[in-house]
């Protein structure tokens, strides 16, 4: 979808929320839901930061690390991609305390989702790094750069642009996965919805609002990433037709 359509959809969803808020049947729920949405946003942002850090580390470890690091990176990627996010959250929440490690639910949420998405991110970082043309490595070698200098100055900046769209998708996956934290007692947007639904049984207004709020948050991520991609690739794309 074009960025214009996405912006139109974002504006439309926000207007729709505002319009619905004029009706008492809806406005009743909005403050509580927005409160939940704030927690959802917090977890999303922190989780995304952790995911990016883990993704880059695991990918570089897998590509260039010595054998034990490579092995460790592979193990991390396979385990977190191979089991589901909810299983990981429950494991951190229910099982870790039995080993004497009790984490706050909020910490579990950020850690669980960040590690989960980071494992997928590692594959996208790896793909982007290996997609940089071989000639770039060779030119950097001819200029006598060290491996670390090549990566930092030449390869990663170029790979970065190729990574933006897949990371955008992963951030949205992470946002959607935050709904799972409602199952480990955090009162995020999904939790509030579930709670209000149980007490009032006004399913349609509550879930309509909730879906619209999630949609708006997803669109913010998508539009933000598109914008970033456009800006970053400016230098690369400018005058490509010359």
């Amino acid at each position, binding site marked *: 979808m074009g960025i214009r359509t996405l912006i139109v959809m974002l504006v439309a969803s926000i207007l729709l929320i505002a319009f619905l808020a004029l009706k008492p049947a809806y406005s009743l729920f909005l403050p509580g839901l927005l409160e939940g949405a704030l927690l959802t946003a917090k977890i999303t942002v922190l989780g995304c930061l952790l995911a990016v850090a883990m993704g880059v580390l695991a990918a570089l470890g897998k590509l260039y690390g010595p054998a034990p690091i490579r092995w460790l990176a592979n193990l991390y990627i396979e385990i977190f991609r191979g089991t589901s996010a909810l299983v990981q959250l429950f494991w951190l929440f229910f099982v870790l305390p039995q080993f004497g490690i009790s984490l706050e639910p909020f910490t579990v949420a950020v850690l669980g989702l960040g590690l989960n998405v980071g494992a997928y991110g590692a594959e996208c970082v790896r793909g982007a790094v290996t997609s940089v043309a071989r000639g770039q490595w060779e030119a950097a*070698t001819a200029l*006598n750069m060290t491996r670390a200098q090549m990566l930092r100055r030449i390869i990663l900046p*170029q790979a970065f642009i190729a990574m933006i769209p897949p990371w955008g998708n992963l951030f949205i996956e992470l946002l959607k996965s935050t709904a799972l934290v409602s199952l480990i007692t955090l009162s995020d947007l999904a939790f509030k919805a579930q709670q209000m639904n149980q007490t009032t049984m006004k399913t349609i207004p509550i879930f309509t609002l909730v879906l619209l709020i999630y949609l708006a948050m997803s669109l913010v991520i998508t539009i933000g990433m598109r914008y970033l991609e456009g800006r970053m690739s400016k230098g*690369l794309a*400018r*005058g490509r037709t010359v």
Partner: protein
Amino acid sequence: MTDKPMVRFDKVSKRYGPLTVLDSLELDIHRGEKVAIIGPSGSGKTTVLRMLMTLETIDDGVIWVEGEPLTHMERNGRLVPADQAHIRKIRSQIGMVFQSFNLFPHMTAMANCIEAPMTVLGMKKAEAEARAAELLEMVGLGQKKAHYPSQLSGGQQQRVAIARALAMRPKIMLFDEVTSALDPELVGEVLQVIRRLGSEHDLTMLMVTHQMGFAKEFADRICFFYQGKICEQGPPKEFFGNPKNERTRQFLHAVLEAG
């Protein structure tokens, strides 16, 4: 000063699986010499440059640069395969220009030229920029410093690539088919820059080329490669005027026929 050759290939072989690309190559290149390597595709000529730039490993033999081993290092009086630190030390004397330019697309012409001097040589930015500006001026791109590679023509990109390599102050410059990816009308400007380098700088140059006219006029020596070996070599006048080997004659005939 030594009378040792600038570069010596001592019985160097390169194999890809069952295929022998270079077969026990022996080649000396002297200080300030300009050597043109020609030959049909698959004759191993590009591999010679790539091995010297350490982009390819070698399977046998030793490459020497100014009397020091590049691919090996001495330990307890014996030659052992070189480690990264040793390779980097020797490699610092060599620069290379590629067929496909390989400019860093996310950096301007200027940034391309100051990147390695700053990160590798530890130059201050002002100093690196002054030097790069001089070099870009020399290749005729003083006005294009702030342009990105994608905003430059192929010929301009290749000239930036030459300036970028020179910024590292190499003693040896390798040119790997540097005009092959260019539109015909852009070949001249790049060759002009190389000509100027040859007359103004004390560089040892090794080039793989298909431009027979340029090789004839510019090089001190022509090496004709065929099936992983030097088939014939000599000064251009002799080489083109009176080729002795049948293969050379066939090759020159075919190339000149094609124009």
